[in-house]
């Protein structure tokens, strides 16, 4: 028995080591680009460049494209209008990347030193090891990660000052203490990958441990209903927020919504209901299982929703009283900066973190035992392929690279703080795909 277990451990270690070597070797381009890797949103180069950043803490200098994908629109068609070199800030000048997560007077002031935090990925959709890696990285960077809708594993409790508790329509794993622990509580009304459809955990991933956490039945598919059955109006929504604030008066409240045509009205309603953060999740992101029809066709991409919300809140005179966090297709430091220029305060990362941890975006998260890289799986053997400390280091190095790139962008735009970039769409330039100047003037060129 002991020998068998030792063998199993040896097998896991063998593959873990080989994978780690692979994550280092592929970005060197010694083997070229993997021919079957990547897609328009995440071309192979971007995946390898993210691996490189997670490995080294800096962007690649061997020509790997690390700023944009090739989707032909949105962030991939936007670039920055940098100042002439003589007007840019010197490299020695400090540039501030801090953003506040609350702008309402009287409530708890929380700032994060980088304008992003980790998005909700539930226990069940990802392994506990992944949740732990993200929480460790969040603590190191004094930012946050989110539980997603799958409960709050005990192992996360030591990191609770950096963990957002998500309450979604299925209320899976939501307990009074998990709300009391949380500095931020996130209501998930909808998510970009499946707007208007609710969450979906396939039966194969609802293991005994996952079911226990969610207080459900093992091996039975779990659908989060859509929408909250207790919310049919902004007034009902306020009731939700009051309920959380009664349980935890210090908590900030984030409201995660998707991007319908009236997203501006949704944002205003959320603000008046008392939300501190409006988290807008565009249609092109998402890490979990989603019907293909929903991913591509329902609700608008984040790039098009942000300016609408930003302008409308500004017209209403409340833009400086609420924080907008953007997600749903934020892949790179460039994307973060562009989202902020389009009107967000900061961004929420999901897929990017998984890619840093080794995701190849093969899309087989829901097949059989789950992710073969040990990321989006609850398989006891596969999930051991990711050691939480190793994962946290990779995420930390990715964050470091992103922060350095963001500072560089700000310097070249002549801005001393990321907060000055918010809503500065005039600092962007639209380049038609195929334009010879495309991204030519961006950071890292030359």
């Amino acid at each position, binding site marked *: 028995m002991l020998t068998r277990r030792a*063998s199993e451990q*040896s*097998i896991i270690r*063998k*593959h873990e080591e080989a*994978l780690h070597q*692979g994550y280092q070797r592929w970005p060197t381009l010694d*083997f070229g680009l*993997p*021919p*079957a890797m990547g*897609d328009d*949103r995440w071309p192979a180069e971007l995946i390898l460049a993210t691996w490189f950043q997670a490995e080294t803490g800096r962007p690649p200098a061997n020509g790997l494209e690390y700023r944009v994908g090739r989707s032909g*629109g949105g962030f991939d068609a936007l670039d920055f*209008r940098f100042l002439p070199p003589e007007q840019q800030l010197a490299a020695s000048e400090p540039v501030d990347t801090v953003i506040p997560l609350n702008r309402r007077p009287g409530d708890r002031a929380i700032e994060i030193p980088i304008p992003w935090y980790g998005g909700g990925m539930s226990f069940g959709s990802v392994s506990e090891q992944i949740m732990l890696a993200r929480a460790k990285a969040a603590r190191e960077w004094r930012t946050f990660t989110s539980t997603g809708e799958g409960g709050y594993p005990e192992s996360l409790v030591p990191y609770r000052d950096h963990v957002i508790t998500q309450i979604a329509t299925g209320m899976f794993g939501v307990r009074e203490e998990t709300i009391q622990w949380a500095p931020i509580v996130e209501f998930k*009304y909808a998510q970009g990958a499946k707007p208007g459809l609710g969450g979906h955990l*396939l039966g194969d991933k609802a293991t005994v441990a996952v079911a226990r956490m969610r207080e459900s039945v093992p091996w039975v598919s779990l*659908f989060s209903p*859509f*929408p909250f059955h207790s919310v*049919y109006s902004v007034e009902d*929504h306020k009731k939700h927020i009051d309920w959380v604030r009664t349980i935890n008066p210090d908590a900030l409240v984030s409201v995660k*919504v*998707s991007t*319908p*045509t009236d997203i501006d009205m*949704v944002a205003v309603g959320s603000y008046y209901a008392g939300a501190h953060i409006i988290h807008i999740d565009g*249609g*092109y*992101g*998402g*890490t*979990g*299982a*989603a019907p*293909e*029809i*929903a991913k591509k*066709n329902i*609700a608008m991409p984040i*790039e*098009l929703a*942000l*300016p*609408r919300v930003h302008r409308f809140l500004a017209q209403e005179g409340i833009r400086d009283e609420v924080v907008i966090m953007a997600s749903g*297709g934020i892949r790179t430091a460039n994307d973060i900066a562009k989202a902020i220029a*389009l009107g967000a305060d900061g961004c929420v990362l999901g897929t990017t973190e998984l890619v840093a941890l*080794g995701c*190849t975006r*093969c*899309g*087989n*998260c*829901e*097949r059989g*035992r789950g992710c*073969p890289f040990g990321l989006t799986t609850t398989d006891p053997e596969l999930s051991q392929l990711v050691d939480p400390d190793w994962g946290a280091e990779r995420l930390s190095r990715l964050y470091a690279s992103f922060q350095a790139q963001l500072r560089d962008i700000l310097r070249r735009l002549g801005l001393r703080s990321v907060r000055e970039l918010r809503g500065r*769409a*005039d600092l962007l330039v*639209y380049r038609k795909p195929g334009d010879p100047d495309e991204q030519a003037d961006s950071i890292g060129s030359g």
Partner: protein
Amino acid sequence: MVADRQPRYRRYRIEIRPAPDLVRLPPRFRVEVKKHRLISLVLKELIHYRANLPVVLSRPCVYGVFSRPIGGLAPKEELCVGCLRCTVQYPEVVQIYPNPERERLGDSYLGPACVDTLLYEARTGHVPVRGAGYRGPFGGAGWDGMWTDMSEIVRPTRDGIHGREFISTAVDIGEKPALLAFDEQGQPVGTLPKVITLQVPFLFDRPPPSARSRRLLEILTRAAREIDTLAMVPIDLAIRFELAGPSVVPVVGEETWRWLGQLNWLPRMIALEGWDRERVAELRRRLPESIHCARVPMESDVLELLRQGARVVHLTADYHGRRNGRFVMDLIRQAHQRLVDAGVREEVTLIGSGGIVMAEHVPKAIICGLDAVALDTALWVALQARFAGECRDPETALVSFPRLEPAWGVQRLKNLAASWRDQLLEVLGAMGLREVRRLRGELGRCMWQAELEREAFAEVAGYCADA
């Protein structure tokens, strides 16, 4: 005491059953293993792990590609899902390539990814579900430049999709006068509504001349009957192959007009190629109880057709969704809007075909203004048809089928219809609509890429609305 009578209500559902592909597809990926390097790796590991065979022989693939006794020396390519774990771990030993044979499936409009999706739907009847977000282009021409809306908090909910509430996908095809008139006794006078209610907003269009085999037409009509929709069949073939019944719509044209006299059963609907007042009058005289449908090019003036008496109009485009250089999306909107502006939209049923090849195209076409769509190439791909070159012109397209087995073919089409209906329910549920009839022409519940970009990038230098 009298026992309750058995309720007659039967909730509509399409029975799905696995219907595996008849023709084996080329695998999605090619697995190229450098055998000498693999042997060298195994030898190295034998030493490193001190001949601990379970460790040495443990393979990176969790899908069984290397599960033969000789592992990577003879990979099972058909099991490869392209996760790339093997090549990530051992880049010098194994490479995974997209299979170029697979890339050749379909044509320039209905590409290999569409073929994959359609085959999955026809095989399983399920909604395609995948992880890791969207992976395609940002937007694009045609249907890709349009997104449907969702609602954060309204009912009906997703529960509707899973059985606790009901979302209707039924549509009415037929003649509907704007107003009913009544005589002094309160009895209706004048034209009365004459409609067929279909449980799904899609019909089956007739196949191109190159593929009008008896067996295919039998499959189409039988599947249409079991789904409770309609299949269009050239009248001469309907008569020769003895295809009759409530789901068969004979299509009659100039060349086949003479066959009309041999039609010995009463179709619920009959379609006329083109618009010809005399022929329409003749159809009305001979088949007064049937619904008469005019099959005309998509750019036709539907208002003028209405004035001349048409009440059901089938707007047609080529299989790539084009007519005279314009895409069907614009042409449908134009036709719908013209009728709305004239205040007569409710009096006409608009059916459209051409370029509707994926599940999402159905709600999008309905939003643009159709009452129902007629499916073409997607059906044939579900039956594992192959196109010879571009499958574009309905008269000359060359489509070949494998040897079709009727029960298999019917099940494939039922599976496809079930999957598309479920996807339609997802879209309706996300919007908070209880019935697909309410989706027609709801342009306020969709978003156009061009309009959103114009608004979002107004302050962005270099953005040109016409770009």
